[in-house]
């Protein structure tokens, strides 16, 4: 009997597949294509306290084995999410993660408080819509906040500390591969009482239009994701998982079952799938089936047998 389950911060996932923030909406777009409750979890579209229009100009550019995006956290804002989407989330049988962004620390804190308060209200009637918060201090596509907090450990510490104080919901911190001292950053998250690390967000990147003689993106840089970043992501997950006692959710360019296994073998407790969702809407389900086939073929009964084996 295969056991695909894993537990992060006391929250049980039926399998290690989490759909990454910004690539899966709030889930409902994909329900036409497969039963998303087969997944371990979803991290919803990144939310900020107030609605955001996102970036102007080109938002996507494909590169060799990857994509660059400059969406800029377009989102309806946390109150609108709680009033609308969260009601649908109540009915989902998978781990539901709110990805929390902010322009400044107060916005992160207020956002976390709103989510916590909403949790209490739902709990009073025996319901639940949010299982975890994923603190996004790593979005490269917004001018304020985002990765501005994700580079220096000292800056990130204050955000993590204040959000941790504001909520008792299990807290993941999504780190930027551009962090100056990634292991130090992850260690700080442990010290401040976070429950897990998501690694990596997109890598800040660029594309030049040589005829226009400027970046194709209005905000100059954009976030690189997809298979191109996977080797870097694996190395980073390995470094952090070896040196920090927090569960790590590995992310970066997963596009096959063996990619998932690589992340688990480097020490990831679970994984996130992002760009691959864009290749075809059923990609998440296909990866899950592929993982089951791989484990059967290799005689692996539980991912615990191979986790961190490298």
């Amino acid at each position: 009997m295969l056991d695909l389950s894993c537990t992060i911060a006391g929250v049980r996932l039926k399998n290690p597949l989490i759909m990454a923030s910004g690539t899966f909406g709030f889930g409902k777009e994909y329900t036409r294509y497969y039963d998303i409750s087969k997944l371990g979890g979803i991290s919803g579209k990144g939310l900020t306290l107030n609605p955001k229009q996102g970036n102007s100009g080109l938002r996507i550019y494909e590169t060799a084995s990857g994509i660059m995006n400059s969406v800029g956290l377009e989102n309806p804002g946390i109150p609108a999410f709680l009033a609308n989407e969260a009601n649908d989330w109540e009915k989902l049988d998978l781990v539901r993660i709110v990805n929390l962004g902010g322009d400044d620390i107060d916005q992160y804190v207020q956002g976390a408080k709103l989510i916590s308060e909403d949790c209490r209200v739902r709990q009073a009637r025996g319901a639940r819509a949010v299982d975890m918060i994923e603190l996004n201090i790593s979005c490269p596509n917004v001018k304020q906040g985002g990765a501005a907090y994700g580079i220096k450990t000292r800056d990130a510490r204050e955000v993590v500390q204040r959000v941790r104080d504001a909520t008792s919901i299990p807290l993941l911190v999504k780190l930027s591969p551009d962090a100056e001292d990634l292991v130090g950053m992850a260690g700080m998250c442990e010290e401040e009482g976070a429950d897990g690390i998501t690694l990596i967000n997109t890598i800040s990147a660029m594309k030049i239009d040589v005829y226009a003689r400027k970046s194709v993106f209005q905000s100059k840089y954009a976030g690189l994701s997809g298979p191109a970043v996977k080797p870097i992501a694996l190395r980073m997950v390995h470094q952090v998982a070896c040196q920090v006692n927090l569960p790590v959710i590995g992310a970066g360019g997963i596009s096959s079952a063996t990619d998932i296994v690589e992340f688990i073998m480097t020490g990831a407790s679970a994984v996130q799938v992002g760009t691959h969702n864009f290749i075809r809407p059923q990609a998440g389900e296909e990866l899950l089936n592929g993982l089951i086939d791989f484990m059967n073929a290799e005689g692996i009964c539980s991912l615990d047998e191979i986790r961190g084996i490298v």
Partner: protein
Amino acid sequence: MAEILSNIQVSHDVFRMKVAGEYEGKPGQFFMVRKDRGLPLLPRPLSIFDLQKQKHYIEFLYQVVGEGTRQFAHLRRGDEIELTGPLGNGFPIHEGRSALVGGGIGIAPLYYTASHLLRPDLYLGFREEPYVIQAFKSLGLSMQVTVGGSILDQLSMNSYDHIYMCGPEGMLRAAQRMQTEQGYKGNLYLSLEKRMACGIGACLVCSVKTKSGNRRTCVEGPVFTAQEVEIDA
């Protein structure tokens, strides 16, 4: 996976691809189209050029503009391709006098749309060489074709109750100005072309600004009314 029945070059950079299968789709809707393996990663959005469910095929008309479409151009009869769709809202079909106006590869959704309207007039504008003109001619409709210049110069908006348009952003913006100048009160529908990633409304890379906030070209579009949509300068 679907089998390619033909993939014919109709101008120096435009191809007409016929794919086997019983697909559904309304005029102005599109499919996300992807080679069965390898790069590029993302599928490309192509609107329905023609769809004959009884005859088991769908056709796309596409221009080679980058690596994705360049690879489509190399596909041959018997090769396989992956389609997701139909997607998007499509053109609302009304009774009354209607014009179909296309600029360049923007003519792609108009052929199938024409077969759903009652004797629409066709306005097709090309920068250099025209293509698939014979197919449009076979519809037996009134047709204006221009090469160079603007096809909009041929159009008197107030002769129509409904205008269905697809073309480059400059042309669509010009049509919005014309609507104001000519005080056109009918329906002017603009079909937008945007780069997309997921095509199903999750990624928000194809957002456009409208009077009522951001909308996703892939779900709430690609067809918007000229009054509501703000087209990037």
